[in-house]
């Protein structure tokens, strides 16, 4: 989230799209009801289904799954053509004024530089025009035909309300109401928050969905202000924390990058990331990348990280590609992987194309499942009839189940969507033989290191170089681990005048104290300060809100730097005055930036220095046009899902995202709208937490059985009765469940053709307390987004038929 959960109460308009906050985030949703009840905020929900968020919304607009870019581009066009934008914000705080290179082009859905054989773009033309001084050229009047603003107007002009209706199936009046409510916040007086989740990300063009949202918010001036923001709602408790600490396959903790094969030296790696400012006076905070990186290496390799060996840079693996879980399963399927360690993960359920996953697991030598509960993955080898049809005799994989403590059986921190790190205390003793993840991993590491010491092996050097100097190597303490995350001074840190600002051994108070000479460590710069010299900030539980704006500054610790709203300098105009009294947040008081939050800015830089509020960006401003930073284009383009009931009505030549990741066999496993005329989409139910709570009796009582939601019209067409057993199948697999025939789903009219959509809740499987069901991802395709590799779970093609079976 750019903002925080508690900040949502400041919103005047709340837009939920690509998510279902009421069902997937019911606790955070309280701030939506709060904004509605106490502020008179309007809530609008755009979703293929009239879901439980829509049940409490003021306005609901239907949309066909996978057509979000068109809808959102329609909103962008509405704002631009009706001049409903926050002009001063756009001019000063976005790159609208930046001039783009002349050879950057856009034709029939494709940008310049496309190479069809490689399914990728050469992005070199996606760049600004630079002046002789090395800075990007700008036209602050926004009139230059090559400025981002004018390119944008041209790019989005065709996304009219009529087109939105034709492509997305949203009735024009319902679309216009959304656009109108969005526009009502483009003024600095009112704010809109956008809440999204995996309904936007899980598409072959997911990242571009979110781009659209960012652009809308920037046009409205809704970034950096209370009640604004583009707010990604994280779907697991602490999934924010887990991505923060670097489980992203191409990242090390704190969103720093893992080296690639093209970066043989530390300097070559840093050179690509230590961004120099693109306009004068800008902070371009990534100039500090080196400090964070070296501090990380010092934590990782301790005394083995020296200036001479580039702080152990070469102990890090160098990526030759992307190794996300889809790729891992593809490699397993090819027989190239021997073992898999699943820690709190149920990939048989979570990964698309279950049949392939099951075959992949069968090819392993060993599978380790570390989990508090028994997962379907750990039982993949067991025959459960149609729900998991496998011959155990043919599976040679040895499966180890290591029982792990549940969250309540160990102390530690949890980071929520608001980026707030909160401590939890141990509430119960571990059950039976379960051990904490830390203890299991430490035990594994120590054993493996011993084996390497004795027998050697590939990567021995790196493994032995790892600093494992815990007091008890088998049980690293929480204090030790937190100190690692936070960072400490390794020698006395002195300021320019030679005064010691941080004594050797002391923990750092902020990442501003990190150094690039090896005198500090700290493996996760963004968390620095949460376990600073004054103690464990995550344990703070002061729920006072002095400003009344939901800024609980002394509750937990919000990374970075305990900041609650990111880019908050943008809440004031270029002169440092609040855009309005209603949205007064961070402002210049003549001496420094002040307000209820920690400024996302150097607090003493006066407004007249014209330092942009987006200090992480080399431009100092936000980007409406993202240069070469995204694989599939600097502007969003309407792309259909790979399986779509219609062709691309805007750019007929585009078949799906032209640069999406496609594995061998993926395209062959796609169905056509002739055989599979119905759109399928998957989602969670509020009664369950992903694939976990099907193991919990009370949750199973609340939603006991898999079902298929469909419109009354589709049910009538197919002769399906309410509560009847139906079969849903795609080119890749099939599932069976009860029909929930509902008014909450309605057929779409797409380009004059009736298109049905069915809803498929994902929480059911063959292990647990709920009735057995086939894994829903037997239906879905593994084709993934070109930027995030996230598979297209949310839009695919299926067919439906009634079958004999227990009729409820």
């Amino acid at each position, binding site marked *: 989230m750019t903002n925080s959960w508690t900040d949502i109460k400041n919103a005047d308009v709340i837009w939920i799209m690509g998510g279902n906050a*009421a069902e997937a985030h019911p606790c955070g949703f309280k701030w*939506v009801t709060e904004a509605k009840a106490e502020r008179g905020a309007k809530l609008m929900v755009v979703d293929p289904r009239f879901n439980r968020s829509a049940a409490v919304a003021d306005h609901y607009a239907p949309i066909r799954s996978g057509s979000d870019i068109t809808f959102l581009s329609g909103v962008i066009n509405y704002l631009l053509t009706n001049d409903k934008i926050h002009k001063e914000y756009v001019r000063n705080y976005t790159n609208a004024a930046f001039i783009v290179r002349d050879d950057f082009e856009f034709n029939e859905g494709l940008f310049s530089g496309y190479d069809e054989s490689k399914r990728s773009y050469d992005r070199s033309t996606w760049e600004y025009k630079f002046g002789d001084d090395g800075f990007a050229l700008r036209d602050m009047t926004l009139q230059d035909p090559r400025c981002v603003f004018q390119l944008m107007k041209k790019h989005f002009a065709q996304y009219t309300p009529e087109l939105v209706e034709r492509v997305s199936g949203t009735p024009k009046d319902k679309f216009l109401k959304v656009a109108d409510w969005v526009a009502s916040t483009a003024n600095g007086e009112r704010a809109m928050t956008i809440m999204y989740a995996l309904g936007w990300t899980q598409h072959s063009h997911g990242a571009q969905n979110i781009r659209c949202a960012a652009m809308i918010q920037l046009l409205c001036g809704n970034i950096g202000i209370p009640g604004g923001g583009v707010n990604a709602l994280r779907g697991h408790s602490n999934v924010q924390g887990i991505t923060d600490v670097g489980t992203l396959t191409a990242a090390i903790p704190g969103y720093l990058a893992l080296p690639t094969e093209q970066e043989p030296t530390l300097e070559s790696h840093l050179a690509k990331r230590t961004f120099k400012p693109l306009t004068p006076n800008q902070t371009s905070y990534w100039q500090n990348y080196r400090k964070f990186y070296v501090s990380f290496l010092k934590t990782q390799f301790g005394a083995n990280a020296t200036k001479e060996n580039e702080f152990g840079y070469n102990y890090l693996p160098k990526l030759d590609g992307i190794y996300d879980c889809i790729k891992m399963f593809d490699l397993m399927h090819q027989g190239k992987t021997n073992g898999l360690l699943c820690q709190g993960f149920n990939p048989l359920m979570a990964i698309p194309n279950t049949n392939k996953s099951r075959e992949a697991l069968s090819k392993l030598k060993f599978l380790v499942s570390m989990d508090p509960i028994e997962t379907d993955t750990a039982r993949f080898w067991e025959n459960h009839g149609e729900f998991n049809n496998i011959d155990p005799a043919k599976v040679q994989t040895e499966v180890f189940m290591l029982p792990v403590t549940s969250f309540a059986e160990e102390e530690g921190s949890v980071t929520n969507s608001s980026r707030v790190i909160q401590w939890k205390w141990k509430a119960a003793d571990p059950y039976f033989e379960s051990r904490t993840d830390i203890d299991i991993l430490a035990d594994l590491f120590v054993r493996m290191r011993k084996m390497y010491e004795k027998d050697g092996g590939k990567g021995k050097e790196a493994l032995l170089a790892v600093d494992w100097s815990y007091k008890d190597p088998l049980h690293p303490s929480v204090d030790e681990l937190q100190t690692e995350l936070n960072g400490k001074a390794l020698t006395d840190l002195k300021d320019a005048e030679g005064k010691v600002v941080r004594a050797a051994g002391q923990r750092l108070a902020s990442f501003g104290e990190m150094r690039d000479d090896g005198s500090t460590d700290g493996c996760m710069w963004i968390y620095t300060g949460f376990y600073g010299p004054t103690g464990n900030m995550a344990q703070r539980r002061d729920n006072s809100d002095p400003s009344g704006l939901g800024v609980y500054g002394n509750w937990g610790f919000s990374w970075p730097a305990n900041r609650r709203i990111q880019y908050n300098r943008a809440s004031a105009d270029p002169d440092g005055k609040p855009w309005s009294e209603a949205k007064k947040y961070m402002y210049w008081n003549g001496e420094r930036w002040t307000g209820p939050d920690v400024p996302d800015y150097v607090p003493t830089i006066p407004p007249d220095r014209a330092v942009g509020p987006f200090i992480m960006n080399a431009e100092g401003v936000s980007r409406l046009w993202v240069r070469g930073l995204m694989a599939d284009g600097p502007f969003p383009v309407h792309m259909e899902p790979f399986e779509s009931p219609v062709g691309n009505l805007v750019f007929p030549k585009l078949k799906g995202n032209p640069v999406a990741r496609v594995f061998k066999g993926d395209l062959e496993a796609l169905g056509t709208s002739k055989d599979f005329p119905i759109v399928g989409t998957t989602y969670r139910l509020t009664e369950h937490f992903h694939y976990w709570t099907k193991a919990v009796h009370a949750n199973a*009582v609340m939603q*006991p059985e898999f079902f298929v939601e469909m419109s009354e019209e589709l049910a009538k067409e197919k002769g399906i009765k309410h509560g009847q057993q139906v079969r849903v199948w795609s080119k890749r697999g099939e599932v069976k469940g009860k029909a929930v025939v509902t008014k909450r789903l309605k057929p779409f009219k797409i380009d004059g053709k009736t298109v049905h959509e069915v809803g498929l809740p994902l929480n059911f499987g063959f292990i647990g307390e709920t*009735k057995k069901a086939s894994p829903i991802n037997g239906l879905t395709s593994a084709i993934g987004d070109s930027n995030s590799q996230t598979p297209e779970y949310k839009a695919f093609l299926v067919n439906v038929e009634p079958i004999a079976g227990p009729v*409820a």
Partner: protein
Amino acid sequence: MFTPVPNPTTSPVAAKFGQQDLIRRSASSITPPAKRQTEVAKLIDVSKCIGCKACQVACLEWNNLTEEVGVNVGVYDNPHDLTANTWTLMRYTEYENAESGNLEWLIRKDGCMHCEDPGCLKACPAPGAIVQYSNGIVDFDHDKCIGCGYCIKGCPFNIPRISQVDQKAYKCSLCSDRIAVGQGPACQKACPTQAIVFGTKDEMKQWADHRIKDLKSRGFKNAGLYDPPGVGGTHVMYVLQHVDKPQIYAGLPNNPSISPLVEVWKGVTKYVGLAAIGAFAAFGFLHHALAGANRVTEEDEENAERLTEGRR
């Protein structure tokens, strides 16, 4: 935000109400306390409810109830009805509002309404099995319950259920055990959106006004508070978007009152019946006293003997 009931202290707290605060006790006549405690109420704001069922789970957990895992029958309602273990249940209704043209998904948390004039208590034959505290809570005492199911017949809202295990009646207790120590009910505690709030009845009415104003501003001109006078008002109240049509909320009664059949059964029948039995018995005594026994006389016997002589 409605100020939530603060977390409890960890040290024991004396119960705030008990037997001395009963204003009604089933099948018993009691002298109510001179001073009533402040009436409490739970307010369920249907317009804020997201149907997450956290209240249902909280109810199971707090009351240590175990419900069976059922099946899906084509709806979101699970279980499909209140049971002896499910004391509260979300009921989902898809309502097409002809006036606005909008679909509305009405989600009502069903459960005991804690009537001021409780029909269950009126119907109950077991002394003390159902009690009403002066704060308005209607509670079942399972040690005294005999499982006759009369409460079901007395209830205008179809709430109590008989357990198939111990054949006793169960329903929401308004978490009388929690409220006795200054806590709100478990469902209220679990509700993420303050669709359930708890406080004194006056506070709840005020809060409802605040909510109704908001709903009216959003075009729900018939928004209102459901506190049906037919049962003397309730200690569980609803804020409804359409208070003029409570029946669209999964059959919430329009103007509930204790059934006249129950009133007759538990009222006039009881007295007339006992009086009739008494009268008949009294008549016997009286008649016997006045008319004396109807004895067979010697003459009768002789007549009989004479009659039978012919056969000898």
